């Protein structure tokens, strides 16, 4: 039907006046975004060169390695080490997303109930630390969690511990530093959907005899759902492919996708494998964002 409509339309030239303004941006987008990303996808299908780079021969072995498939030529058995790295990164990112939700929901609720001027001030206060350098914010958590860091110093000063607690170089350290990093990504969408909420619905629920917990579960949460979903996705996505936090305060046993990617290119010099990891990571991320966009438009249709 669309095709018929397109064909039936009076012929108009593709280039319209004013489109010249799009030209520089388009060139930049094609040359420095589409082409590099396209090259990564192509390289992921090729054979590794001996000294880095690639050999132009199609080979799907990089993907086979990621998914743990055996390869008789290379004497490789089933091996899920890379799937395990993806799973661990996803788990850590999910833990980060839910922790930001728990920390962010009450705060967003409180901010949404303030007078306008105070609202703007508090939202600014939530956003401001986000613009402190990401590396410096992870570094601050290194100073807090290290063996001779702030927490261990305080605890041993109080006589509560004899030996320093091992906090840095654990998945927990990565989670807490990423929660710290991405809290604004949770609070801002939550705030947006809580602020729109009709408070009379909550009163109605209470008047009809529902307790606080039931009202929260049956009224507040469904109304805040678009913000919750957006917040979870917006925190999960950058946590999943994060490079700085796992590199600096993650344990060497708990390799994550971001550092794996850097290793593949910088130390192993295995471009096809690194490209395949990058392609899988990007596909997963885009899938999450696509699902979020879908749930948002569906929410608008049903509302």
């Amino acid at each position, binding site marked *: 039907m669309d095709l018929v409509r397109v064909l039936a339309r009076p012929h108009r030239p593709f280039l319209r006046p004013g489109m010249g303004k799009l030209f520089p941006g388009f060139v930049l987008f094609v040359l*420095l975004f589409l082409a590099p990303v396209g090259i990564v996808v192509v390289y992921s299908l090729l054979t590794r060169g001996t000294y880095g780079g690639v050999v132009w021969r199609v080979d799907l072995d990089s993907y086979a390695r990621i998914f743990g498939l055996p390869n008789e030529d290379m004497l490789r058995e089933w091996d899920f080490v890379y799937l395990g790295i993806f799973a661990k990164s996803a788990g850590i990112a999910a833990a980060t997303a839910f922790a930001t939700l728990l920390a962010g929901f009450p705060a967003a609720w409180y901010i949404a109930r303030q007078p306008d001027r105070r609202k703007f001030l508090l939202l600014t206060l939530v956003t401001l*630390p986000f613009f402190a350098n990401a590396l410096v914010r992870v570094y601050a958590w290194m100073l807090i969690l290290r063996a001779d860091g702030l927490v261990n110093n305080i605890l041993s000063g109080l006589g509560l511990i004899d030996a320093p607690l091992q906090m840095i170089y654990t998945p927990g350290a990565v989670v807490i530093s990423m929660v710290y990093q991405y809290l604004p990504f949770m609070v801002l969408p939550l705030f947006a959907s809580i602020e729109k909420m009709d408070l009379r619905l909550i009163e109605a629920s209470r008047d009809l005899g529902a307790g606080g917990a039931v009202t929260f579960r049956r009224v507040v949460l469904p109304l805040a759902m678009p913000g919750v979903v957006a917040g979870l996705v917006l925190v999960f996505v950058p946590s999943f492919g994060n490079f700085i936090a796992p590199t600096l305060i993650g344990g060497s046993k708990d390799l994550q996708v971001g550092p794996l990617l850097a290793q593949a290119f910088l130390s192993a010099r295995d471009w096809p494998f690194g490209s395949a990891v*990058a392609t899988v990571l990007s596909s997963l991320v885009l899938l999450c964002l696509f699902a979020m966009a879908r749930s948002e438009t569906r929410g608008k249709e049903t509302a």
Partner: protein
Amino acid sequence: MSRRRASLPSVALGAHVWGFFLFLYLPIVMLVVYSFNDNAVSMMTWNGFTFDWYLRVLANLGLIDRARDLAGSDNLQLYSDPNLGPAAVNSLIIALSSAGLATVVGTMTALGLARCRFPGRVAYRVALFLPIVIPDIVLGIALLVFLATLGFPLGRVSVILSHTVFLASYVAVVVGARLAGMNTQLEEASADLGAGPWTTFRRVTLPQLMPGIVGGFLLSVVISFDDLVIAYFTCGVGATTLPVYLFGAIKRNVSPEINAVSVLMILTSMLVVGAALWLRRPRQHKTEA
């Protein structure tokens, strides 16, 4: 909500919000406080107040004279670092040029998308989000592989180009949002009164867009200035930026000087962001409505 039983839930909520803001600001406050700690051996053990680390950073940046200004301080006999100054210069040049380029390109893109209809317009608008949402490490590696394949030398120019790509998308989004909320009647009135397209743009459209453009520029400066991951892969050995320098220093060993550099970087970013937020603050009386 209910005034009858406001006590317990609202006290708990208040406590949570206090805890929330403490969590957000304590790490930064701690970093600032300990950057003045006079303890070269064990950084997190307080041993009195000193400006030494900042003086050393200023000396390494070449802003004060080591021999004249730093005489007599025992922490300052330690080594001097020749890499900090060039890194700061690289960062400033890269941030200002990529933000400048991105602001021009991004604003043009936003104008083109808002003011002219063509097939694929919606698809292009969505595609422009890709450089923002794709993991930064993927973009950094893709650019590295691409530039290496072309044989393009890694240096300031490669970082500037790499930053410009995603910053242009970012500016296009910010300026586009402002264009969407803008009244086209003023432009039509200007055209009716005989002004040409260029005059209308310069005298009517641009002044209305200015807060968005300046805000987009300032935020781009900060994003470029703070970026580690993309610069890490595209800077090569010759164009180390401040975050790349800092990353290396943190991985090698932790010296009190790093704290001072960190605080100065946060301060720089905060000042620029503060200016951007101030420009976009909600006004009491709006003339547009």
